[in-house]
């Protein structure tokens, strides 16, 4: 009789362990998905900000056309890449956009009246913050992926992960320095 109870007890413990680990894995995966969505939100926010920025800057006499056009072009390219679903291409396009924007910000230094423009200052704050948010959400995403990967690879949760097909490794995102960024002029005083 006691043997049945012991077996029953072991079975219950195994079920509790399975359920707990499974839920933990599902939770970790959802957190990763959510973190990925966060990056998207911030990238979209950047697309929305750029037309306003270009509009504000365009009004200034003799503002370097090439720089502005590069930003507009990079934005369009990034937006197109965002619908393609190819992560590598998209990451490259976003890198180009980051580079074009940072070049624009360096060029702005030459226009003192632009820097005194309230409208422009507000936009610049938004843009700085959005750039920060992009890198922070990428950072948070990578941290969550590390967490998830640890769970799928470490004993004993790797057993449950293997049983339910959790062991798909998620890609890490890297802040790649794009060609445009490398070409960004260095400021010297």
């Amino acid at each position: 009789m006691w043997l049945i109870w012991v077996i029953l007890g072991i079975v219950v413990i195994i079920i509790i362990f399975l359920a707990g680990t499974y839920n933990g894995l599902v939770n970790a995966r959802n957190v990763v998905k959510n973190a990925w969505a966060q990056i998207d939100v911030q990238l979209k926010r950047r697309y929305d900000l750029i037309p306003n920025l270009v509009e504000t800057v365009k009004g200034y006499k003799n503002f370097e056309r090439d720089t502005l056009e590069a930003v507009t072009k990079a934005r369009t390219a990034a937006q197109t890449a965002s619908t393609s679903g190819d992560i590598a291409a998209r990451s490259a396009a976003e890198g180009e956009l980051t580079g074009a924007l940072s070049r624009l910000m360096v060029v702005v230094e030459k226009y003192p009246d632009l820097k005194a423009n309230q409208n422009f200052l507000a936009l610049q704050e938004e843009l700085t913050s959005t750039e920060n948010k992009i890198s922070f959400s990428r950072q948070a995403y990578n941290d969550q992926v590390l967490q998830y990967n640890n769970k799928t690879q470490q004993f004993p949760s790797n057993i449950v992960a293997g049983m339910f097909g959790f062991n798909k490794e998620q890609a890490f995102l890297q802040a790649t320095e794009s060609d445009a960024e490398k070409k960004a002029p260095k400021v010297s005083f």
Partner: protein
Amino acid sequence: MWEQIRANRVRSIILVILMGALLVLIGWIIGMVFAGNAIAGLVIALIVWGFMSLIAYFQGDSILLGVAGAKKIQPSDHPRLYNVVEEMKIASGLEKMPDVYIIDDPALNAFATGRDVNHASVAITSGLLQKLNRDELQGVIGHEISHIKNRDVLLMSMCGVLLGTIVILSFYASRVMMFGAIAGGGGNRRSSRNSNGGGGGAIIIFIIAILLMILAPIFAQLIYFAISRKREYLADASSALYTRYPEGLASALEKLAQSSIPVKSATQATAPMYIANPFRNKNVSVNDWTSTHPPIQERIRILRAMGGGAAYSNYDQAYRTIKNTNSGIISDNTAAAVGAVGLRAAVAEGPVETAAPVDDKMTRTREVNDMMYRMNDYKTIQCECGAKLKVPPSMQGGVIKCPRCGRTHQA
């Protein structure tokens, strides 16, 4: 990476249990002395504690914000502050954006409150907001956000309640006992005899009880401070990890250390919520054991000694070096789980930072002052001579003369 909460929690829980034991002890003594029955005392202690906990849990944040005179701000009131809070919210992986409050106070401080991650607020004094550049602000907000993320706010307010209960109970019980012993020694002895059967023994028990009553609140306070200090180190480490830039917080703390204006609205109970001890006074050397916060210079030194990494393991290493100790502040498995984390460079600054450093301070001060005026319902009139008139609500509706050029305006 959020596993560190669990590891550090164990140590905190041990300390909380110690405080709970003190409360039980107080209840037991009260029961024995006044009713001859330990259970009655325990029930009284638990009722007082439960009642205070409920208030602290549901009303704690609004009481704290109300006492501090904090005003909630919208993104448009101060975009930079709001953005920085949002950045740190993203970096920490919080799901809900905390409310942002501003306190009209020249003192330099900030605190976080709220019982859980979904009812959280961050408050900063206008003085601090004026003083900090973007990187420093990020460090400070990162520190506050990690108090929310690590559930320190709940832990500290529950500990505060525990401490408060112990202090109140032992204060009143010991006064009543002393009074009883002086005024009606006979009555007291009679009741003691019923339970103990010996006069001499009763007096000894009585003295021990009084001693415990006096010592318990002191011990409880020391434990409370110990928990608080631990959480401060952890929040510093988390801030460095979130921002990937320990220097930001270090330089912000340096600015905090230079100021000795105490926060007007802070009390002993709310002190652990602030980023730095709100009562700090340059002329008084702060004793290690009786402080809610680690010495600010030490925190700066640890942050600066992190050497090339922003991970918990870097902070832990720096902590060991600076404190010259073998026991770190963060458990080993925590540090290992996060792994190596590199630093970032100082960010390109927003609008304020593009100007010369002197202008910076002026712009920031003007920005904050304008916001405070707006929030207090002042109206701004731009006079033709270039002066900006700030009209208080009480003077609106009348005719106002520009003090510089004498033109009159309809307010």
